[in-house]
């Protein structure tokens, strides 16, 4: 169903808010391999965290990095809920996940895009607080920037904000192999060692 608001065509969806026509196309990069829409209810953060950690594991990250990536996602979503939507728990959030192609020594990585319909904010004003000032709150942005390799906030074209963050898998030069930890196996080329 369409009507006009200030000359802009509006779409009234059956189960959602009225939105500018064409806005659906704006949500999320259609090339994202995984696209999720959720409402801004903290109850669902655990499910999104587990899904992202699981995907990150399949993309080659170790357990600790998977945990940190899901932490960065969680912090970003909490900021949307807390600051963007002022703790309104029924607002839309979109998440897109895309793997990164291998580059240099990195076998790949992950890009996560989070979009909302909250008020636009000047990206220059989205900064973490000084850690020396120990007080409750205000750590989310610091954590996101600490965990992820690249973080970019930008206003979306019509309404809301977009956060794009990515992280690459880092491979050790000579990763330890399972056999290196097993008794009875020797490292190849180790003349002093022998199989027992």
């Amino acid at each position, binding site marked *: 169903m369409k009507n006009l608001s200030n000359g802009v065509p509006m779409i009234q969806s059956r189960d959602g808010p009225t939105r500018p026509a064409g806005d659906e196309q704006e949500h999320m990069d259609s090339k994202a391999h995984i696209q999720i829409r959720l409402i801004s209810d*903290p*109850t669902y*953060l*655990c499910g999104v*965290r587990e899904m992202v950690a699981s995907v990150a594991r399949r993309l080659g990250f170790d*357990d*600790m990095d998977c*945990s*940190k990536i*899901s*932490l960065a996602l*969680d*912090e970003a979503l*909490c900021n949307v*809920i*807390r600051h963007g939507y002022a703790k309104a728990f029924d607002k839309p959030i979109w998440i897109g996940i895309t793997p990164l192609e291998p580059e240099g020594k990195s076998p790949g990585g992950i890009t996560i895009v989070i979009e909302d319909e909250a008020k636009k904010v000047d990206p220059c004003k989205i900064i973490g607080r000084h*850690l020396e000032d*120990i*007080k*409750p*709150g205000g*750590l*989310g942005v*610091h*954590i996101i920037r*600490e*965990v992820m390799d690249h973080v970019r906030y930008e206003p979306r074209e019509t309404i809301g904000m977009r956060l794009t963050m990515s992280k690459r898998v880092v491979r050790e030069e000579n990763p330890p192999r399972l056999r290196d930890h097993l008794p009875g196996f020797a490292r190849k080329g180790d003349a002093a060692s022998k199989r027992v």
Partner: protein
Amino acid sequence: MHENETFLTVSEPSSGVVVISPSADVDMSRSPILRTAIQQSMNPKTSKVIVHLEDVGYMDSSGLATLVEAMRLGKSSNTSLVLSAMSPKVLAIFEIARLDSFFTIVDTLEQA
């Protein structure tokens, strides 16, 4: 029963010592429950509050904020706050926020 109703247990193994044991992730949806439990425990009769984190696999900055707030409350009420049995993944967020040296963190509940 809603999962949040069984999110944590509170015990008093000895006089003046309260142990609060969350049993799941401490995130934005659950940290208010932890905050309330800590606030109720920190009274003039309590000398030490131990937050036992053995069953906590994940904590976000709302959990951190709750514990920073608890530390401040404890200083004003002369109640010490100890964190025990923290997993490496939970410790990582304390390190990222440079808060690992701000808290008293011990390996086991017995050490607390």
